[in-house]
């Protein structure tokens, strides 16, 4: 009996030693030399692997950052300035502070504003629907409302508002990674500065991308930009351009004075995070136009 016990112990010990030697040899032989700073940088990254920076994931970003001569061409939208400062500290680079950004849904074609003309009965995918036809409203540019952006968002920052059928971006959760903008087959979502300065969160944007002529656009949607150009005329900062019957506000030039919001006849220009006193918020205007 004791023979068996001893034999077992001996055999197991020999096997263990052999395996340990093999493991040791393999780890020596196949060791990959890597800049230890890559690991350090990766540690301070948010770890979402969202691809918002343009790299395949956080590690790819870290590898590129370590190799690059400076950090000018790289920015992690999720971690923002905080993370970039940490990365810069590890690598000893300078980093320019960037204004925080977020995703903006540039369509206000709610069920009310944009009556449905047919019923979509295919699979709930914006890609499928957009590939099939112009959509279940008269507007062939706007949101098709199947929620590809919601599915694309890793941060739970976008949800569909059942009352309007449009996606809503949660300002506090959005990291401006741009996944939703990429997922949208209609190009409705734009990544814009969160506010006119890095600190405030006031922003003004045209909530429409309809390029049809005014009459056609208006017929399809009560909240459409009709390209009338009043906003461009009233803007003192040259931030507004009209192209293809559509107004566009350059967020790098806009100071959020709110004049264009007052001027817009359809309520297509939205102002967010303004104190109600200064500017009439757009919902009031919308109600007027709906009457």
């Amino acid at each position, binding site marked *: 009996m004791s023979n068996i016990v001893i034999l077992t112990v001996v055999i197991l010990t020999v096997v263990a030693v052999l395996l340990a030697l093999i493991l040791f040899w393999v780890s020596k032989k196949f060791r990959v030399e890597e800049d230890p700073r890559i690991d350090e940088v990766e540690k301070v990254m948010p770890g979402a692997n969202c691809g918002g920076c343009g790299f395949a994931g956080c590690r790819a970003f870290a590898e590129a950052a370590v190799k690059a001569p400076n950090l000018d061409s790289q920015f992690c939208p999720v971690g923002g300035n905080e993370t970039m400062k940490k990365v810069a500290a590890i690598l000893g680079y300078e980093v320019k502070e960037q204004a925080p950004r977020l995703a903006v849904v540039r369509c206000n074609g709610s069920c009310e504003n944009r009556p*449905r*003309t*047919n*019923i*979509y*009965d*295919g*699979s709930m995918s914006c890609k499928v629907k957009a590939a*099939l036809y112009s959509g*279940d409203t008269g507007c062939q540019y706007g949101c098709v409302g199947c929620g590809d952006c919601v599915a694309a968002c890793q941060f739970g920052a976008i949800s569909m508002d059942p009352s309007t059928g449009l996606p809503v971006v949660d300002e506090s959760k959005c990291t401006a990674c741009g996944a939703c903008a990429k997922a949208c087959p209609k190009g409705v979502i734009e990544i814009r500065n969160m506010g006119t300065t890095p600190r405030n969160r006031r922003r003004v944007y045209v909530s429409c991308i309809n390029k049809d002529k005014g009459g056609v656009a208006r017929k399809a949607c009560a909240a459409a930009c009709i390209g009338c150009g009043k906003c461009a005329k009233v803007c003192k900062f040259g931030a507004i351009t009209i192209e293809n019957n559509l107004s566009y506000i350059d967020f790098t030039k806009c100071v959020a004075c709110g004049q264009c919001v007052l001027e817009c006849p359809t309520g297509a220009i939205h102002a967010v995070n303004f104190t109600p006193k200064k500017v009439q918020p757009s919902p009031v205007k919308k109600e007027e136009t709906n009457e």
Partner: protein
Amino acid sequence: MDKLLVSPAPHLHVKTSTRSLMTDVVIALTPAILVSILFYGWSELMVLAVSVASCVLTEWAVTKFLLKRPSTISDMSAVITGLLLAMNLPASIPWWVTVIGGVFSIGVVKMTFGGLGQNVFNPAIAGRIFLLISFPVYMTDWSMTDGFVPVVDAVSGATPLTALKEALLSGSTVSEFFAESGLTVRDMIQDVGASAGEVSSLALLAGFAYLLVRKVVKIWIPLSIFATVAIVSGIFSLANPDLYTGPVFNIFTGGMVLGACFMATDYVTSPMTTAGGIIYGIGIGLITMMIRYFGSYPEGMSFAILIMNCTVPLLNNWFHNKKYGRP
């Protein structure tokens, strides 16, 4: 005129639905169920009812309280799991054992993987094996026969396979066993003391024929199982007729027909291609025969199916349909 529907093509759809397919399987099981009630009486009906109810209720509860999804019980798949599980249980089994089996089958084997279509193992089989290991005494007691028609009680209180195993262990030969028990081929096909699913191979085969006619399942998996069992047992019984039983005995006992026709052909846990299905069937046949001949369990169908269930993802990966215009 209301607003028009718009969707991508095609604009038509077959009448067949998941539910109708599952209903077909229930219909196919009906003859065997009726026969077993005939032999085992109300207690068998009780087992069936408890099993189905516990399966359906478990699925309902899991979808409602744990997954918080719309209920999926209307697709009838839980009913089938319940029926198949019950058909693997003896009529004398206490009701709470059946409930445990049902909860395990659906709650653990099916729903933890994500419900219908996601499970790796056949829920009814896994449930049966779970019970067999946990409650071996209850699971192997086939003595109750208070049916409307007397069952051929060839080997009182045990299935033919169990009795055979015991006989062989005690040193008798196959022919001695048959002579002693008086078991004939006719008994094996028509009615033999065993679980509901084993009692009448004829009724099961009739149900399977219905599934074939309705094109619910394909014949390849059962066929390859039967062929493998026949070939393996044929070779062995020719080599040593004293130790090894022949093809007919092996095919018509031990839930072979139920397993091959209704459990191995479960869509979710069987390969999707014909070639894969044949390999899968051969595997089941081989493993079953190895367990029966050399293992300590008298029968091996359930274990064989469960083991081959593991290979299904691989088989699906290896075997693909012939594609048009490609070698």
